[in-house]
């Protein structure tokens, strides 16, 4: 089993023009472009609404004028949202960064073993790991809450980090296993003949080769943990709430104005959006790994 479950997906455009046929379908091209542009408007609409609503003073957020442009850059909503969600944004950061880092290290070790040091039963173990990726967490939620209340009664961030690291094992192991599967067996074998052991090969061959794999896993885990809601709401108390829980609460309250809610939603989305914009191609690879094969 040397072929990875997912061949590295490249959606990057293939810059080969169709051979033979003259490109006569000019009108077709325009239609295609217009349809795509219409979809682009649909996809950007919610962000546009959050932005223009967030930038308006409350007096201007009358229902009827929702789609009008804000008169200027009115940033007080963002200040209010930051005051309300600031501690939770910090909690999310303290949660997502360490959890993503630990996940990556664990996943890389697992992936290294399951692709280069396979032993009897290791494929079965890998399959058993993978199933953990798909389970509805409601099916483990009651024991999880009971267990975490016993070992971490304060309900703080460290407990939530542990939970995210554990349930992150399947996807991080999968991504790294696929990654290491592309390293030729001969490279590992010749290092072995040269006297390198398990850790030597990991440190000097696997680890340096898998830096892009780390980028994929770090980004994937950071995004998912930042965006996660269910574990956060059952395992944390208000003072350790990540931003998703706090935002849901803010949006559910009748007291907080719409424009502050929109500014808050935008703030909550900003870190993962920035990561996506800057490192999108790594994000895409993580996404595709979940489909097992592209």
């Amino acid at each position, binding site marked *: 089993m040397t072929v990875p479950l997912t061949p590295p997906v490249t*959606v990057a455009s293939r810059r080969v023009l169709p051979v033979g046929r003259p490109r006569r379908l000019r009108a077709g091209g325009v239609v295609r472009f217009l349809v795509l542009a219409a979809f*682009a408007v649909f996809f950007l609409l919610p962000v546009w609404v959050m932005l223009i609503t967030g930038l308006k003073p409350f007096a201007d957020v009358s229902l009827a004028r929702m789609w009008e442009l804000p008169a200027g850059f009115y940033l007080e909503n963002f200040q209010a949202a930051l005051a309300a969600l600031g501690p939770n944004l910090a909690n999310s950061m303290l949660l997502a960064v360490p959890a993503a880092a630990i996940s990556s290290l664990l996943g890389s070790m697992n992936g290294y073993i399951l692709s280069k*040091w396979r032993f009897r039963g290791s494929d079965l173990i890998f399959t058993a790991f993978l199933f953990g990726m*798909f*389970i509805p967490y409601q*099916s483990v939620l009651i024991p999880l809450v009971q267990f975490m209340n016993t070992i971490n009664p304060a309900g703080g961030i460290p407990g939530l980090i542990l939970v995210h690291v554990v349930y992150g094992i399947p996807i991080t192991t999968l991504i790294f296993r696929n990654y290491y599967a592309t390293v030729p067996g001969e490279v590992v074998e010749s290092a072995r003949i040269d006297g390198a052991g398990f850790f030597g090969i990991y440190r000097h061959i696997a680890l340096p080769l898998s830096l892009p794999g780390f980028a994929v896993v770090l980004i994937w885990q950071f995004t998912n943990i930042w965006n996660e*809601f269910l574990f956060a709401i059952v395992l944390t108390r208000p003072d350790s709430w990540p931003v998703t829980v706090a935002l849901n609460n803010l949006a559910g309250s009748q007291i907080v104005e719409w424009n502050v809610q929109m500014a808050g939603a935008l703030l909550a989305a900003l870190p993962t959006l920035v990561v996506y914009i800057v490192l999108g191609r790594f994000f895409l690879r993580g996404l595709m790994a979940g489909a*097992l094969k592209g």
Partner: protein
Amino acid sequence: MSRLRAARRHWVPVAMLTPSILLIAIFVYGFIGWSLRVSTSEWQGLRPDYTWAGLDNFVQLLSDRRFHIDMRNTLVFTTFFVTGAVAVGMLLAILLDRHVRGEGIFRSIFLFPLAVSLIVTGVAWRWLMNPGSGQRQTGLNLLFDIFGLDALQSAWHTTDPPWGIAFVALPAVWQMSGFTMALFLGGLRAIPEELKEAARVDGASELQVYRRVILPLLRPALLSALIILGHLSLKVFDLIVALSGKDIRLDVPAIYMWTTTFDANNFNRGAAIGIYLLLSVAILVVPYLVWSLRRETEL
């Protein structure tokens, strides 16, 4: 190689994998077993009560009105969400495959919702799908009014059951069709140009090339999309919570499990719903996992 070293070769990797094996064994399989135990118990209230109740909780749910609503909602949501996300993703992939100007920008725009939390999506779409009409109209209804498309105005997710939940599929499609687009685009780009060219040389029209050559080759990507979207759809939770709070008309098993367990302390019923959810996902995913691994061994 000495026997000692040979033994060491197998011993170290197993030892290094052991922590993960233990964690998965406890947190996934152990906890599922524990949930099963709770689901067959009398536990209602804050104090655990493991008195054996057999399958009572599972049987009761089958005649529970709220659970019926949940199953119907899941069915309607799944139908609209999976169909919508596959159709939109397929259309976008086909359009993008033909090397359109600005392809990179379009791709980025279609994919960015995947990086956004479902809670954020729910909050934004709650504003867009505001059901108000007349003087109180806003959101998309107001936008339709501005463009003279009043006929498109809707009560959205507050439409009478069972169709309200169908509108929840709209933000879900918004969020996930970038994923199906990427899957299909990957599939399309893997089809050799010669294959399409050969069909064209044989006199196939562009439409026939798609129907006879391209779409059949996309079947593996379609299968992946159906499994991933299907299991997400069975588990849908965050989006509905953020969109409508705990509106019973949009109730789904994942929300029922959450409220009956943590608001009403019906731990045994909550666990039974969790197990039902697990079974529904397992029916979908286990054959797929087995198929994926077997195919891999064949290659």
